[in-house]
């Protein structure tokens, strides 16, 4: 295919649709007079385009506008409902948050107060030790007494040894 034919075919549709500048359209027209191949191509384009007319338009059912306006009313009602729901939900969530915090604080305070009133029972070991705590205090004294007694013995022995000497 010659470059001129290539160019003409690239603008053939625009030519058929009347969308070319007058000078360009003239150039295409002059070429078509001389070139049977491009003329055949043009006829195929025209005929295939005309076939699209064979598809009939859809008949629109009557009452479309009434159905549409009914849908608009539904849309407005839905929007108003959504707006109300949104504000109601917001109020409920704020209220729930406040109540939750109050409940938490009350519970925490209750637990704190409860632990203050009731003495925690001692473990068995602690209980056994606590029975003898006074004795344990004496144990230290007893230890000291043992040391004191040992020192006394030592001094007596030393004195005895000195006297004997």
């Amino acid at each position, binding site marked *: 295919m010659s470059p001129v034919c290539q160019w003409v075919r*690239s*603008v*053939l*549709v*625009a030519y058929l*649709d009347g*969308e070319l500048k007058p000078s360009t359209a003239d150039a295409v027209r002059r070429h078509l007079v001389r070139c049977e191949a491009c003329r055949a191509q043009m*006829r*195929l*384009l025209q*005929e*295939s*385009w*005309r*076939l*699209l007319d*064979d*598809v*009939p*338009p*859809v*008949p*629109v*059912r009557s009452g*479309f*506008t009434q*159905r*549409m*306006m009914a*849908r*608009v009313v539904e*849309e407005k009602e839905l929007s108003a409902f959504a707006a109300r729901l949104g504000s109601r939900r917001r109020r409920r969530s704020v209220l729930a948050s406040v109540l939750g915090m109050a409940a938490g604080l009350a519970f925490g305070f209750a637990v704190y107060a409860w632990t203050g009133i009731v003495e925690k029972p001692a473990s068995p070991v602690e209980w056994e030790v606590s029975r003898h705590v006074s004795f344990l205090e004496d144990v230290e004294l007893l230890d000291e007494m043992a040391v004191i007694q040992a020192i006394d013995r030592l001094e007596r022995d030393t004195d005895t040894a000195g006297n004997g000497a």
Partner: protein
Amino acid sequence: MAKAIAAVAASYEQAGRRGAAADYDVGLMLRFQEGDELAFQELVQRNHGRVVGLIYRFISDASEAEDLAQEVFLRIYRARKTYKPTAKFSTWMFRITANVSLNALRSRANRKDEVSIDQVTDFGDGSRAMPDPEAEMPDHDLRQAELQTKVREAIAELPEKQQVAVVLNKYEGMSYAEIAGTIGCSTMAVKSLLARARDNLKDSLLLYIRTGRGRQRVC
């Protein structure tokens, strides 16, 4: 009403589009924007035929086309607060229509339970019907039905933008500039789209052109 039309005229003069100041639908949309619901009703009444018809070219199902047309007008309804008359009302309306149609086509493709267009033909009476090969149709009607199916198929097989350009050019009589405004591209791009689209259509329908099935034979 006079105030609305004056506002439209002012906006178009500002944009250098004096002709569009006379766009009656823009005036209706501006009235609707100010709260006049009857103006919206009139917009629907004036334009629903074109919207349903355009969608039908993509969807080939009259009932679904009407549902989708309602979706188009709902989008127009919802956009009333942000609407600005920067172009003809029909340009904006058809842009929404093309988007809604293409979304529906994509959903159909994703559903994968679409009935092949080979099996379904819409005879334009609002119902879908399966053509019965045993039915006693006159030969000519059968050829016509087959041709219509084939043409719909050929359009449906085009890439999306080519489909939109073909449908707007053929069935709405839009110029290249108007199509460019609707689909948001340059006039040069539309020229290229239509050149490729019509070449593809020619190839798809070659058999019907050469054998003259359903049409007068081309010599």
